C-alpha cells in the first residue's frame, strides 16, 4: 500500500485518464500506471458508484482533477454554481492537481460540451486572468492551465500562444499543463514548428504533460487538418515530441488521454509503459 502522504503531488511518472470499465484491473494491477486523472464534471453527482469508486481509487493513487466545463475563456462571468461544485469536489477529494483549459464552452448559459477557441489579445488576457484569480481564490489552490488544439486562428490575435500562456502564469501564479499532442495538432494545422513552440514555452511552469491520439482530415484546400480526438494511440511523431520536451523540461508527470473508443486495459497500460520508458531516458 502506498503512503497516503505521497499523494499530495503527482509523481514524475505515467498516469492515465480513468475509465470506470478499467476499475477492476487498475485495482488488481495498475502496471506502469502510477496516478489517475478524472474529468471533474463526471464526479459531480450526489453519490452512487462513481463517487464510491473515486473514494476507493484516491486511497491508492495520486489523483488529478481535470475540469472540462468551467469555460475560463468565456466572455460572460464564470458559472457561480459550477465554481461551488468544483470547490466541493476538490475540497473532499484533495487531489494532487487541479487543471482546466485555455478555452470556453459556455455562452449565454448554454454549455456546448467542446473546448472552443480564443483570440489572444490584451482584452482576452485580462478576462482569463480575472477568471483564473476567481477560481484559484474559490478553491483555495493553484491550478494548471492547458494549451488547446487549434484548427483555425483569430485575425485579431496579437500574442503568440506560448507567450500568452506564460503571461497568464506570470500574472495569476497558475501553473501550466502542456499537451504535447495538442502542440503537434496545432503546429500541423497552423503550419508552425512544434519544436519551436516547445522552446518558446515556459517549461519551468509545467507541472503535467498530456499525450493523446488524434484523427487525420483535410481542410478545404487539401491540406492536412488534424483533429484532437483522444480516440486512438499516440502516434510516433508525438512520442518524439515528448522526448524533445522532456529533454528540456526534465521529468514530469505524463498522462495518456484516451476518452473515445476506449481500449481494453492492456492497450492503455502499454501506452503508459511507453511513457515510463521515455521518462527513464531523462536525467532527473
Amino acid at each position, binding site marked *: 500500500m502506498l503512503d497516503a502522504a505521497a499523494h499530495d503531488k503527482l509523481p514524475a511518472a505515467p498516469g492515465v485518464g480513468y475509465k470506470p470499465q478499467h476499475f477492476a484491473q487498475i485495482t488488481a494491477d495498475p502496471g506502469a500506471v502510477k496516478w489517475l486523472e478524472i474529468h471533474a*464534471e*463526471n464526479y*459531480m*453527482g*450526489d*453519490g*452512487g*458508484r*462513481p*463517487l*464510491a469508486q473515486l473514494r476507493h481509487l484516491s486511497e491508492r493513487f495520486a489523483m488529478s482533477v481535470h475540469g*472540462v*466545463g*468551467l*469555460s475560463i475563456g*468565456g*466572455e460572460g462571468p464564470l*458559472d457561480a*454554481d*459550477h465554481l461551488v*461544485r468544483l470547490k466541493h469536489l476538490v475540497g473532499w477529494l484533495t487531489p494532487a492537481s487541479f487543471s482546466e483549459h485555455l478555452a*470556453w*464552452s*459556455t*455562452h*449565454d*448559459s*448554454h*454549455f*456546448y*460540451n*467542446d473546448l*472552443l*477557441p480564443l*483570440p489572444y*489579445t490584451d482584452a482576452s488576457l485580462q478576462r482569463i486572468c480575472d477568471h483564473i484569480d476567481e477560481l484559484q481564490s474559490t478553491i483555495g489552490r493553484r491550478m494548471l492551465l492547458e494549451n488547446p488544439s487549434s*484548427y*483555425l*486562428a*483569430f*485575425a*485579431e490575435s496579437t500574442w503568440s500562444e506560448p507567450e500568452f500562456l506564460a503571461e497568464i502564469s506570470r500574472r495569476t501564479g497558475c501553473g501550466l499543463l502542456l499537451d504535447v499532442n495538442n502542440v503537434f495538432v496545432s503546429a500541423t*494545422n*497552423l*503550419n*508552425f514548428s512544434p519544436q519551436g513552440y516547445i522552446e518558446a514555452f515556459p517549461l519551468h511552469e509545467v507541472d503535467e504533460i498530456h499525450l493523446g491520439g488524434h484523427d487525420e*482530415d483535410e*481542410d*478545404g*484546400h487539401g491540406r492536412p*487538418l488534424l*483533429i484532437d480526438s483522444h480516440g486512438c494511440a499516440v502516434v510516433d511523431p508525438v512520442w518524439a515530441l515528448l522526448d524533445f520536451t522532456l529533454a528540456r523540461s526534465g521529468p514530469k508527470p505524463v498522462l495518456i488521454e484516451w476518452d473515445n473508443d476506449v481500449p481494453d486495459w492492456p492497450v492503455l497500460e502499454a501506452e503508459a509503459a511507453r511513457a515510463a520508458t521515455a521518462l527513464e531516458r531523462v536525467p532527473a
Partner: protein
Amino acid sequence: MSVSQTEFTRAMMDAGQPVPDGLIDHHAQPAGRRFNVYRNNVAVSLTEAMHSAFPVIAKLLGKQNMDGLAGIYLRQHPPSTPLMMFYGEDFPAFLEAMEQLKHLGYLGDVARLELALRRAYHAADAVPVAPEELGALAPDQLMNTRLTLAPAVDVLRSPWPIHAIWRYNTEDGAPKPELRAQDVLVTRPEFDPTPQVLPPAGAQWIRALIGGASIGEALEQAAAEDKSFDLGATLALLLQGGAITGLDSKG
C-alpha cells in the same frame, strides 16, 4: 475584426450561417471548412451523450432516427450546465411533441424511465433501515409511522407498459410487452438502479408517503384509488430495494 462568442456560437449551431469573418487559417485566408470541426465536435458529442442517456429509445428508433432527433434536440435544448450526466431532461416532452412520432405514444414515458434510472444512479447514498425495525412495530403504531425514502427512489405512472418495453429492450429473452398501463418503482439497492412494476395503487401509496402522509393515511388514499391495494406487497418492494431510510413513529 473581432469575433464575439455570440457570433461564434450562432454559426456553430447553424451550418446555414456563414463562418464569422476574422477566423482565419495560417495564410490569413478565411477559415472556411476548418470551422466545421467545431460544428461537428459539438453535434457529435451531444448526439453521443443522447445515445448513452437513452439507450432504449435509441434502440426503439434505430441509430439513424435517433441521430436525426438528437440533432434537432441539441439545437432546441443545448445543455444548461456542464453536468452531462443529467442532459436530456426535456427529451420526453420533445418526443411527445413530434408529429411524426405520435403513433409511438409510449416513447415519452419510456424516456422518463431512462431519465429516472440515470438520476437514481447518481443520487445520494443512504443507509436503509433494517426490515426488523418495521416488523417490531405494533399494527396501529405502523399505521401512524411516516417513512423517509432514499434519494434514489422515484415513481412513474404510465398508461403504457413502460417496464415491459424497457425490459424487452435491455434483457435477453424478456417477454414481449403486452398493451397495458404500468406504474414503476425505481430503487437503487446498492449501486445499480432497479425498476420494478408496482401493484395497483402502489404508486399512489408511495407518492402519498413522499408527500408526508403516514402509512395509514397513504393507505386510505391508495384504497380509494383501488380497493384491492396490497400494502404488504408494496411495502416489500420498498424494503427489497433498500428504499426506506428512516421511520418516524411519533405520530
